[in-house]
């Protein structure tokens, strides 16, 4: 069956597939039953796992039961191909490594999307009991913590084991490095968000239990404690009154009183001296934009003039970056900004730059300016 024929097949059976997706039926026609879009369990037919995954991922839907697989298999393969390439130097192993890195990156991206979807889903959940909701949130927290660990493992391996193998691989790792930092930061903020959600929901659960208890005490007329608490300092509390009701209490002024009160209010406001403000000519000053730009040219000139054994550390300690760090551009650390500039310098071919196979104390590859 071709791809086009498959699309036609899905279209022809759309009603049955939709009913299966919505779990409204467990039986379909024989042709569909024989296809790989469904599976038969006993007498019942269900959508196949791959088809359901395709739908959920395309429609950005997610199930709480999602399993986040780690990348250990791919990483093992990657190291295996690295060793073979270093032994035999066949470009085939390099291509395999290139494809594996891309696959791992796509997985990282997919995980990131799935985690965001999962958080939105659980934060807006209204159909579950709070106990179950907390249980599910704890389960997701465990899964995200595991993904966080796996993401860090990938990052470490890319930069420490794979980066020096070949220029082609290095270029790919460099081009995805900023995005990888973004994924790691996203996971960390997701963990915070989920922890806050769990704390909020736990508080809500305690509140609801207390309310239930209180309502039962009121029903059973065992509410002396509530009476006492309310009577203790009612002046600080809100006295809800509906003046249309019989025997209402005039804590708030009624119609006859309101005009008198407004008059008194106006009188008291008359004592307020309002100084007439002198007219000032408004001078519009040209707006100065703080763009936090780093002068790359200056760094390059200083490098050419002084040279260095470690370009990254040179950038990291350069006054241009010191200013940048002090002015505090949100979301970027000094190290991340220095690393970005470092990449911009080393990626284009430059006869003055010599890359070594060793790393500095910031775990960045040492490059000399010669």
């Amino acid at each position, binding site marked *: 069956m071709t791809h086009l024929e498959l699309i036609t097949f899905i279209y022809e059976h759309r009603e049955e597939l939709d009913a299966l997706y919505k779990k409204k039926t467990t039986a379909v026609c024989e042709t569909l039953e024989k296809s790989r879009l469904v599976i038969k369990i006993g007498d019942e037919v269900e959508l196949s796992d791959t088809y359901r995954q395709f739908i959920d991922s395309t429609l950005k839907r997610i199930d709480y039961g999602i399993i986040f697989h780690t990348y250990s298999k791919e990483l093992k393969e990657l190291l295996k191909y690295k060793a073979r390439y270093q032994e035999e130097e066949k470009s085939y192993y390099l291509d395999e490594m290139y494809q594996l890195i891309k696959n791992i990156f796509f997985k990282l991206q997919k995980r990131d999307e799935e985690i965001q979807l999962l958080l939105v889903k659980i934060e807006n*959940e*209204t159909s579950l*009991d*709070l106990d179950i*909701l907390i249980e599910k949130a704890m389960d997701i927290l465990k899964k995200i913590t595991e993904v966080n660990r796996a993401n860090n493992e990938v990052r470490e391996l890319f930069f420490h084991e794979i980066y020096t193998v070949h220029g082609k691989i290095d270029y790919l790792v460099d081009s995805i490095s900023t995005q990888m930092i973004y994924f790691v930061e996203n996971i960390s903020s997701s963990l915070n968000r989920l922890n806050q959600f769990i704390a909020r929901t736990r508080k*809500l*659960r305690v*509140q*609801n239990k*207390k*309310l*239930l208890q*209180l*309502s*039962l005490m*009121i*029903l059973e007329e065992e*509410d002396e*404690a*509530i*009476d006492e*608490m*309310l*009577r203790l300092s*009612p*002046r*600080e*509390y*809100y*006295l*809800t*009154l*509906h*003046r249309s009701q019989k025997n209402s*209490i005039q*804590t*708030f*002024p009624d119609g006859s009183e*309101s005009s008198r*009160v*407004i008059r*008194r*209010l*106006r009188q*008291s*406001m008359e004592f307020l001296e309002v100084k007439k403000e002198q007219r000032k000519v408004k001078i519009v000053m040209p707006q100065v934009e703080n763009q936090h730009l780093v002068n790359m040219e200056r760094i390059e000139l200083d490098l050419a003039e002084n040279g260095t054994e470690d370009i990254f550390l040179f950038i990291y300690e350069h006054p241009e970056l010191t200013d940048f760090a002090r002015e505090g551009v949100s979301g970027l650390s000094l190290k991340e900004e220095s690393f970005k500039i470092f990449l911009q310098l080393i990626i284009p071919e430059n006869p003055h730059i010599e890359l070594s196979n060793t790393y500095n104390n910031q775990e960045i590859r040492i490059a000399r300016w010669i």
Partner: protein
Amino acid sequence: MDIATIFKVMMKGVMISRNSQKYGEMATFLLYEENYIHYEEVLQTLGYELNGENGYFFLSKSEALNKDEIDQFVRSHKEVFMLISILKQLMPYVRSGTTIRYTEFVSLHEQKRDEKMNEKWQYLFAQSDLRSSSEKFFERLQKEYIIEQIDRKDSDSYLVLNGMDYYLSLLESM
């Protein structure tokens, strides 16, 4: 916005919430310390206290309440606790800022109705007809400034106001 306009509203016993479409602007005005202190001073000369925290504001009387007033105050609060308890028993996720739907409430009430729920309901309403008493339930929540209809044309959707936190903070202090 000025304090005379706010007083005209609050003197009727309105609890103003920051997330209310009707009174949100007033609550935001009072969030400025300068405005709050000024209004508070004026009110004290009139015999009222201004109370407000967590995005809601209300007035209370400066002088001591008499026995009848205290009795009504206690009775009214118990009824509101019962209202919120029913609301949260049927919709446990409800907090200030949540949107709730009348039709969903009625359907959940039909599903989860039990003996205790009936007792609670009877504490508030004499009518046994669920639909008409549910309407009363929503009307009462609106009168207590706990919920507010989001759109005049949509009689199904309501926003839970910050005012609900007043009762929940009392609950926490118990």
